[in-house]
């Protein structure tokens, strides 16, 4: 089979069709109530003053831990603040929406993978990328 050495720089007609199909999946996922709720709660969490205040405290403790300053004290304090964040109603709602979104995406991905003959998301993750979500 004659294939290009650098696949990402070469677009065949099949690949363009696949890209369009990918965009279609993305657009339809975005329109689902599950994902809309998730995005709304993500914005709500990021804008929440209590979350922002506690996040600032977390960063302070994390920085102290990285510098090795009173590690036991800061580790306990960090765990306490993390628990406080997790208990906030808006964060709990966000976690539930995130879990629902994961379930939705996993079902979609299983379908894609079944048709493709290869596990899609598992093999599509860029190495070293811990982004998103």
């Amino acid at each position, binding site marked *: 089979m004659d294939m290009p050495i650098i696949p990402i720089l070469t677009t065949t007609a099949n690949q363009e069709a696949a890209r369009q199909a990918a*965009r279609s999946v993305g657009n339809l996922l975005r329109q689902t109530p599950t994902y809309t709720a998730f995005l709304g709660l993500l914005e709500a969490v990021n804008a929440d003053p209590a979350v922002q205040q506690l996040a600032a405290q977390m960063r302070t403790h994390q920085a102290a831990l990285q510098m090795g300053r009173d590690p036991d004290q800061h580790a306990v304090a960090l765990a306490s603040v993390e628990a406080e964040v997790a208990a906030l109603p808006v964060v709990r709602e966000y976690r539930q929406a995130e879990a629902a979104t994961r379930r939705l995406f996993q079902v*979609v991905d299983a379908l894609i993978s079944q048709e493709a003959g290869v596990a899609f998301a598992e093999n599509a993750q860029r190495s070293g990328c811990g982004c998103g*979500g």
Partner: protein
Amino acid sequence: MDTTLQLPAALHEAARAFGQAIRTDDFVSAYLEARSRYAADAVAVELEQQLSSLYEELLVRQQAGETLSQEQRTAFYDLRRRAQTQPSIVAREEALAQLKPVLANLAGEISASLEVDYTTLAR
């Protein structure tokens, strides 16, 4: 995974169509062929099963606080080297390495629509 979750019809069809479009890609075909050749190679399959079993066994021991002996580590690395140099496994892994950037680009198209990383949420 929640197998009872019902997808909207349009999304279900789009996901199927996307999967089918992926399957027509030359890199996917090459990978599937390489995977079939591997599956037909009894020695390679046995090697990978042995490697997986040994890895799990050593991991459990380590997690239980046991320090692995030099012999155990050597046995593992020898088995891994044999697996990594088995031709059908090498061919499968090379085909997969060629395929991954193609899949990553396609996932990027989905992520661009979503404004979050699709692969993080879908795994």
